[in-house]
C-alpha cells in the first residue's frame, strides 16, 4: 500500500534548516554545534517514526513535481531505503558529537564551513536513501558529491587540495555516467522508478543495449570504489577524520553501493540480471576488488589509509552479495550495509582519537598505545574483530549470510574468495591490535607516557558504536534492521 506523507520532507529539511542556523550562528561555536546536534536528533527521530509504517508493508511516498512524463521528482521509501536512512541519520548524531571533540581538540580552522557542509552531505545521503527513482537519486547523488568537496579539501594544504581535486574528478565523471544511465534507462523503459523485481519494460530492449547500460550504470557508481576506480578513496583520507568516518564509511561510499543494489534489484531485477549473465560480471569485479584491496591494505602503514583500503574491500562484499542474485546473498549484502557502517565508523573514530590524543598516524608508531588509551583501543579491537567476521561482532552475521548465499549459488569458488578475503582481513587488522597492546613503547618508561585518552565527546560515540556492533550480533533486530532486510528481500520477487 502506498502512504502519502510529508515525513520524508520533514526529515530531509532538518539538515537544510540546520545548515542555515549553523551559518547564522557561526560566531558562537557552542550554539552552532547545538544546532547541528538538534538537527541530527530531530532527523533521526523523524526517520525512526517511519519504521512502523514501512514494517506494515507500506511504501511512503512524497512527490514534489513531475519532472518528465512518468518520472516524478520525489521520494518513495521502502524497507531498503529506510535502512540506509536510519544508519545515515543515527550515525550523524554520534559523528556530530565526535566532530565537536575532534575539531576543538585539533583547533581546526573554518569550523563553520565544516559543519555547514556536513549538514548538506547528510542532506544528500538521506535524499539518496529516500529517492523513489533514478533521477531523484541522481540529483541527491550530485549534491552529495559537491557538498563533500569542501570537507575533503578542508585542510587547504596542497595535499588536501589535490585530494579534493581527485575526489571531484572521479565522482563528477562518474556523475556523467550516472546521468547517461538515467537517461538511457528512461529511454528504454519509459520510467526510472524503482520497482520490486525490476522495471518490466526494460527487458524489451536488446541484450547488447542492456549490457552497455549496465556497464554505464556501474561506471556511474564510482562512489562504491570498485576497482580499478577506487583510488579517490585512499587519497580522500586527507580529510579530517570525522569526515572520513561518516562520509567514507557511511554516506558517500554507501550511497554508491546503495545505488548499485538499487540498479541490480529494482531497475534490472534479479531475473533479468541472471538472464543476461550480468551477475557473474559484477561478482568477478567484486571478488577482484575484495582480494586486491585487502592485499593493498596490508602494505599500508598509515592507519587511515589501511582503513580506506579495508573499506574498498568491504564495500565489494556488498556488491558480491548482490551479484549472487539469490535471497541469502542479497540479505547478506543488505545487512552488511548497516553493519559495516557501524564497525568501520568505530575504527575511523578510533584512528581520529589517536590522532587527537597522540598525533600519531602511522601504525608503526603506535607501540603500546593500548596501555594508555585502553577504551579507544578496545573499541578498535571490537571493530577489527567484526571486520574479520569473528563473533560476537555483527560482521559475523552478514558474512554468514554471504557465505550461505555462495552455497545457494552452488559456487565454491565464490565461497573460497569470501574465506580468503576474510583471512586477509585478519592479516591486516591483527598486527595493529598486537602493536597497540603487546609491543613495548620505544624510548619511554612504562607508565610515564603523557598521552591520555581523547575527550569525552569523542570517547562516548566511539564506545557506543563499538557496543552497537556487538548488540547487532546478539540482537540483529535492533532498530528493526533484520525485519526491514527480510521485508526488502521478500519484496524482490522473481527467482528470489
Amino acid at each position, binding site marked *: 500500500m502506498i502512504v502519502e506523507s510529508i515525513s520524508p520532507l520533514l526529515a530531509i529539511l532538518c539538515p537544510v534548516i540546520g545548515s542555515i542556523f549553523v551559518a547564522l550562528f557561526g560566531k558562537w561555536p557552542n550554539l552552532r554545534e547545538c544546532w547541528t546536534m538538534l538537527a541530527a536528533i530531530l532527523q533521526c527521530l523523524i526517520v525512526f517514526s517511519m519504521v512502523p509504517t514501512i514494517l506494515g508493508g507500506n511504501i511512503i511516498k512524497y512527490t514534489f513535481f*513531475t519532472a518528465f512524463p512518468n518520472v516524478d521528482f520525489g521520494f518513495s521509501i521502502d524497507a531498503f531505503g529506510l535502512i540506509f536512512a536510519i544508519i545515515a541519520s543515527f550515525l550523524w548524531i554520534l559523528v556530530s558529537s565526535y566532530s565537536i571533540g575532534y575539531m576543538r581538540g585539533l583547533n581546526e*580552522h573554518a569550523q563553520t564551513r565544516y559543519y555547514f557542509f556536513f549538514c548538506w552531505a547528510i542532506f544528500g545521503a538521506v535524499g539518496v536513501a529516500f529517492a523513489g527513482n533514478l533521477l531523484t537519486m541522481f540529483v541527491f547523488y550530485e549534491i552529495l558529491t559537491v557538498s563533500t568537496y569542501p570537507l575533503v579539501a578542508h585542510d587547504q594544504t596542497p595535499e588536501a587540495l589535490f585530494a579534493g581535486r581527485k575526489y571531484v574528478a572521479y565522482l563528477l565523471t562518474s556523475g556523467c555516467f550516472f546521468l547517461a544511465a538515467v537517461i538511457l534507462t528512461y529511454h528504454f523503459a519509459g520510467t526510472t522508478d524503482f520497482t520490486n523485481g525490476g522495471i518490466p519494460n526494460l527487458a524489451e530492449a536488446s541484450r547488447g543495449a542492456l549490457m552497455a547500460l549496465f556497464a554505464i550504470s556501474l561506471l556511474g557508481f564510482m562512489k562504491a570504489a570498485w576497482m580499478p576506480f577506487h583510488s579517490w578513496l585512499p587519497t580522500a583520507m586527507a580529510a579530517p577524520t570525522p569526515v572520513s568516518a561518516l562520509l567514507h564509511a557511511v554516506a558517500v561510499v554507501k550511497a554508491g553501493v546503495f545505488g548499485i543494489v538499487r540498479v541490480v534489484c529494482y531497475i534490472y531485477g534479479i531475473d533479468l540480471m541472471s538472464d543476461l549473465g550480468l551477475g557473474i560480471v559484477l561478482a568477478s569485479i567484486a571478488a577482484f576488488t575484495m582480494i586486491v584491496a585487502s592485499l593493498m591494505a596490508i602494505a599500508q602503514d598509515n592507519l587511515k589509509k589501511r582503513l580506506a583500503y579495508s573499506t574498498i574491500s568491504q564495500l565489494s562484499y556488498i556488491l558480491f552479495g548482490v551479484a549472487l542474485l539469490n535471497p541469502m546473498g542479497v540479505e547478506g549484502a543488505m545487512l552488511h550495509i548497516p553493519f559495516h557502517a557501524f564497525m568501520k565508523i568505530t575504527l575511523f573514530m578510533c584512528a581520529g582519537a589517536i590522532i587527537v590524543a597522540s598525533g600519531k598516524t602511522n601504525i608503526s608508531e603506535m607501540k603500546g598505545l593500548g596501555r594508555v588509551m585502553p577504551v579507544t583501543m578496545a573499541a578498535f579491537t571490537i571493530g577489527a574483530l567484526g571486520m574479520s567476521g569473528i563473533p560476537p561482532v555483527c560482521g559475523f552475521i552478514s558474512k554468514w549470510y554471504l557465505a550461505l548465499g555462495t552455497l545457494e549459488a552452488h559456487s565454491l569458488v565464490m565461497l573460497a574468495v569470501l574465506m580468503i578475503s576474510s583471512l586477509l582481513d585478519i592479516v591486516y587488522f591483527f598486527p595493529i591490535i598486537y602493536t597497540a597492546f603487546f609491543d613495548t613503547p620505544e624510548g619511554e618508561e612504562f607508565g610515564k607516557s603523557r598521552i591520555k585518552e581523547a575527550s569525552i565527546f569523542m570517547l562516548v560515540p566511539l564506545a557506543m558504536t563499538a557496543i552497537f556492533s556487538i548488540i547487532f550480533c546478539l540482537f540483529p533486530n535492533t532498530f528493526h534492521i533484520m525485519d526491514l532486510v527480510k521485508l526488502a528481500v521478500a519484496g524482490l520477487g522473481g527467482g528470489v
Partner: protein
Amino acid sequence: MLIVEHFPVLLIVISMLAAFTILIAGWRNKKTSFFISFATILVQFVMSIFILRHVMTVGTIYYWLGGWAPPWGIEYVVDALNAYVLVILLFLSLICVTYSKRSIEHELPDKIVSFYALFQLLVTGLCGVTVTGDIFNMYVFVEIFSLAAYALIASRGKIALKASFTYLVLGALGACFFLLGIGFLYSVTGTLNMHDLSILLPPLYGNRVVQAAFVFFTVGLCVKMALFPVHTWLPDAHSFAPSEISAMLSGIIIEVSTYAFIRVCFSVYSLEFITEYVPIFDFLCLVAGLGIIIGSVLAIAQYNLKRMLAYSSVSQMGYIMLAVGLSVSTHHALWGGLTPALMHILNHALMKGCLFLVAGAFIYKAELWNISDLQGLAKKMPYTCAAFTLAAISMIGVPPSVGFVSKVYIILACLDAGGWKIIFVAVLLLSTLLNLVYFWRVIEMMYMKRGEGEEGHSHSSSPVKVDDIPLSMLIPVLTLAILCIIVGIVWLMEIPVIGSFPILDRVNELFGLGVYAP
C-alpha cells in the same frame, strides 16, 4: 487596435530616440545618461512582457509601418519566438545597464555619455532584429547592433582596438554574406517581406540561386554567432570589452544571431527546404559537436578569466546550434523541435551573463584579470564569489540548475533523433567533464587556495575584511545567479505539465516541428 499592438514599433522608436537624447542631455550633465538609459530599457522590458502576454493570449502581432500593406511597406511581426527572445534580451539588458552604472564610472569615466548612447543603439539594433518581419530591415538592424558593438568593444582603447578591428572585419564579412543572400532572394522573387518570401519561394526551391542564398545566410549568420570554425573574433572581443558588454555579447548578441538564423530557416525557407533541398542541419550538428569539444578544450588552456569564459561561450553556442540542428529530426512533445535550443538560449543568457558580470566585478575591485589572481578571494568578496559558484555549477550542469536541464533535454533530443546522432550524447557528457575542469579550477582558487601570508592554521577568525562590490552591481549579479537555480527548477516543474508552459510549444507549432511535424 490595441495599444499593445503598437509596442513592437514603440520599442524601437523610444530606444533610438533615447540614444540621441542621451547624447544631447549628456552634453550638459553626464549623470543623466545612465538614468535615461535605465528608464528606457525598463519601459522596453515592461512592454516586452505585455507583448509576450498578448502573443500568448490573443495571437501574433502584425504591425505595418506607416500603414503600408506588407509586400510594399515594412512589416513588424511578433510571434511566440520573437516575444520570447525579446523578453530575454531586454531582461539581460536591464541587468547589464543596472550593473554598468558604477562600473562604467570607474572604468571609463570620460566616456560615460558615449557608452550609454552606444549601449542604447545596441539595444535598439537587437530589438529591431527580433521584431522585424522584413529581411532587409533585419539586415539593417544587424548592422546597427554590430556597429554599436564594435565601438563598445573598442571603448577601453589599446589592445581592445585590435579586438574590435578583428570583430569588425569578420562581422562585416558575415553581414556581407547576409546581404548577398538577401540580394539573391530579391533577384528571384522581387520581395523582401519574410512572409511573402515564404509564399513565393517553395516553387523555386530547386533554383540554384535560392539555394546559394540559403548558404550565404547560413555562413553569414554563423560568423555573427561565432560558431566553431568562424569563432576567432569572439575570444578577443569578449575579453577586452567592458564586462557588461561581454555579458551582453555572450549572453544575448550571439543568440540574437541564432534567432535570425532560426527565423531565416523556418520563416523564410521551410522545413521542406531544409530537409530535402539543402540538408544542412546534420552538418550543423557535426560542426556544433566539434565546437562544443574544441571550445571547452581551448577554455581549459586559458589563464585569463574572461578569455576562458569567452571560449566557454564558443562551446555553449555549440550546444545551442546542436539543439537547432537536431530540431528537424525530433518528434517528442517535450524535447522535440526547437524546445531544447530555446531553453538553452535563456539558460545561457542567465549563466554566462552572471559569469561575465562577476569577472567584471573582480576587475572593478582590484584589476584581477587572471585566474591565479583570484586566490583566496572568497573571504574578501563572499557574495560575488558565491554568485560565480552558482553560475559555474550551472555551467557544469549540477542539478537542479539550468545547465542541468539544458543538458538533459539536449541529450533526450539526441536519443530521440536516433541513428548516428547518439554520439552527441557522449559529446555532451565529455563537454560536461571539460566544463568541470575549467570551472572547478576557478572555484578551488577562490575558496580553497590560501592567500599569501596565511599559511598554517589561522584560528583567530581571520581578519580579512569583507570588501564586496557596491550594491548596484551586486544585485544584478546575485539576481542572475539565483535565477540560474530557480529557473532550473521551474523548467523541471513546469514543462512536463502540458499546457503550463506553452511558449516553446507554440514556436514548434508555428514552424511545424517536433510533434507538429508532418
